[in-house]
């Protein structure tokens, strides 16, 4: 196992920058996920770590050795592909054996290692089959098996779960994470699914347009998003982002949005952030959990309650998402109240939980807090 370090890694195709000055440190034994929308450069970054794509500039180190010019085979990595990339003309056994055979491991040792990997993944019964005779889940296991059969320094995984059906995906997610913990493996994992990133990773690297947006623990990127992109990407439904103006009432800043949206912060930290804001336009970010519905909003006399109109209601069983309109703003709120009876057009109130609000600069989209 080894540490992986990316230093100012750049990949350009002509004048387009696919990956723009990405720096990351992936510690030994960490599960790090690169996440972002399609075309954000995450797979390109992974392929550069693998050596399948050459760097335009920057350095990649694996275990303190610069590997920029090394062939994939000399980097001591293993990779699991989205479509599994099992060799169709070889049996499962031969697929698992291939990386060992290529490295000149002798026959007895090869057999022992193949059997060990097959046992870990529960595929001993499938060893004589060809890949096309396997189900998607079984193929996925074989692909993982081929990666772990030779104890590489780093595992690279490119959306390995996205071809599985929803139920199996949840199962394999848990299994992969368990396996990683047990082996103490260093894993770089690429996905576009923020839930996968949140649930599996020690650290998440969020990318957009080839630029690293934020790198931190799932907790950090969820609760302290560095900018509006991260705020909108992590979490489902995404964070509400409202364009507001700072106004002053009795010397205190008040955020004023469209319609009846007014929010007067009380905590000194937020007040200070607003007073120091570079422009009067700021983006107010708030997750659905931090603006719970107050059923009889119109009658609520709390000064902080914002009147809203129900746009649509989405019950999911344990949580009910309520889309509401405040002026021109469309927000998602939620309630755990199973007896919630609101209907489209009903007037309700929203209670803003001040401890969970986020503020972003309109120009740079960076956070104004911390």
């Amino acid at each position, binding site marked *: 196992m080894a540490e992986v370090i990316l230093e100012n890694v750049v990949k350009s195709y002509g004048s387009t920058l696919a990956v723009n000055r990405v720096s990351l440190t992936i510690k030994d034994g960490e599960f790090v996920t690169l996440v972002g929308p399609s075309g954000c450069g995450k797979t390109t970054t992974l392929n550069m770590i693998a050596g*399948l794509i050459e760097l335009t500039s920057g350095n990649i180190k694996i275990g303190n050795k610069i590997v920029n010019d090394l*062939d*994939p*085979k000399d980097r001591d990595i293993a*990779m699991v592909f989205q479509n599994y*990339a099992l060799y169709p003309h070889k049996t499962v056994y031969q697929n698992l054996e291939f*990386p060992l055979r*290529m*490295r000149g491991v002798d026959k007895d040792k090869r057999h022992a290692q193949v059997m060990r990997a097959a046992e870990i993944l529960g595929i001993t019964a499938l060893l004589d089959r060809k890949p096309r005779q396997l189900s998607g889940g079984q193929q996925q296991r074989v692909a993982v098996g081929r990666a772990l059969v030779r104890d590489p320094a780093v595992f690279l995984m490119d959306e390995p779960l996205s071809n599985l059906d929803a139920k199996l995906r949840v199962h394999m997610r848990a299994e992969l994470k368990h396996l990683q913990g047990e082996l103490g493996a260093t894993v770089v994992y690429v996905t576009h699914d923020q839930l996968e990133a949140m649930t599996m990773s020690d650290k998440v690297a969020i990318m957009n347009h080839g630029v690293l947006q934020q790198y931190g623990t799932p907790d950090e990127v969820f609760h302290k998003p560095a900018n509006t992109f991260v705020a909108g990407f992590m979490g489902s439904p995404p964070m509400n982002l409202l364009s507001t103006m700072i106004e002053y009432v009795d010397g205190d800043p008040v955020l004023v949005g469209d319609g009846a949206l007014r929010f007067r912060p009380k905590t000194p930290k937020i007040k200070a952030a607003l007073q120091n804001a570079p422009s009067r336009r700021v983006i107010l970010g708030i997750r659905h959990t931090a603006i719970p519905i107050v059923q009889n909003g119109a009658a609520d006399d709390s000064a902080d309650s914002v009147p809203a109109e129900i746009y649509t209601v989405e019950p999911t069983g344990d949580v009910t998402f309520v889309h509401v309109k405040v002026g021109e703003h469309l927000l998602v709120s939620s309630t755990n109240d199973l007896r919630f009876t609101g209907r489209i057009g009903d007037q309700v109130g929203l209670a803003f939980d001040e401890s969970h609000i986020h503020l972003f600069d309109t120009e740079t989209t960076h956070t104004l807090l911390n």
Partner: protein
Amino acid sequence: MSAITQGGSQAVAYPARRFGIKQRRALLRLTIIYAGTMVLALFAALPMVWMVSTAIKPRSDVFREPTTIIPTNATLENFIRVTEPLTPSGRYFGTYFLNSTIVSVASSVFSVMIAAPAAYAFSRFRFPGKQVAYFAILARNMFPLIVFLIPLFTLMTALQLVNTYAGLIIAYLTFTLPLSIWLLKGFFDGIPPELERAARIDGCTRFGAFVRIILPLTTPGLAATVIYSFVQAWNEFPYALNLAYSTNMRTLPVGMTFFFSENQSDWTGLMATAVIISIPVVIIFMILQRYFVSALTQGAVKA
């Protein structure tokens, strides 16, 4: 017949009209398909039947009336006559056969050896002029063979390759390569690039991944390339006639023409030779046929 009977008996149990029309349509479709197939089969098979029939007739029976398909006095005498080194008609058979074999085998081997890497490059790599080069290669097949005969002859004369195996083989590659490259590119396009990426990570060089993973998956395409190139070279006539005209360089198709000039239209000898010439092609086809069929169908889907 059984289908009709079945339809009749079931018409009692089911609404008669619906079932009857369905069944009649199916029957009509089958009839048309079978009739068409039989016409095509006859069209293809009759000349061959005639060839074999004439080849085993005594020379005196060829023009006897009424004409018979199955000869009354079948004989193998013609085969012996055209292959026997001591007879005037069989004198050069061995030489021609050897020439044909050398030229055809070499053409098919070089076709695969050149077409496979070329097709792989066209399938996988980006390089300047790729589209133009690909089109230029395919453009060769838009013209009839004979158009290139004079330029090729001039070229081979300049290179002093007239009446050599190399000259004929190079000339044959001009028409076997375009189709081979096109066919194999279709195959490579159908193989996900992740397979060779996986192989490179698993310990192969780029070339190693090509040889160990990609080529085995292309076996049907390679087999098709071999068959196509071999058959084309084996049967080719105009290039062989003009680029390899000396007696010791002639190929079998060219050699066959001398049954007319030397022996005043020796039909039985000609047909016996034709039968012998067909045998290697038939054998190769029988061995590689299943690859050939899957290659053509796969290529059709993926192209």
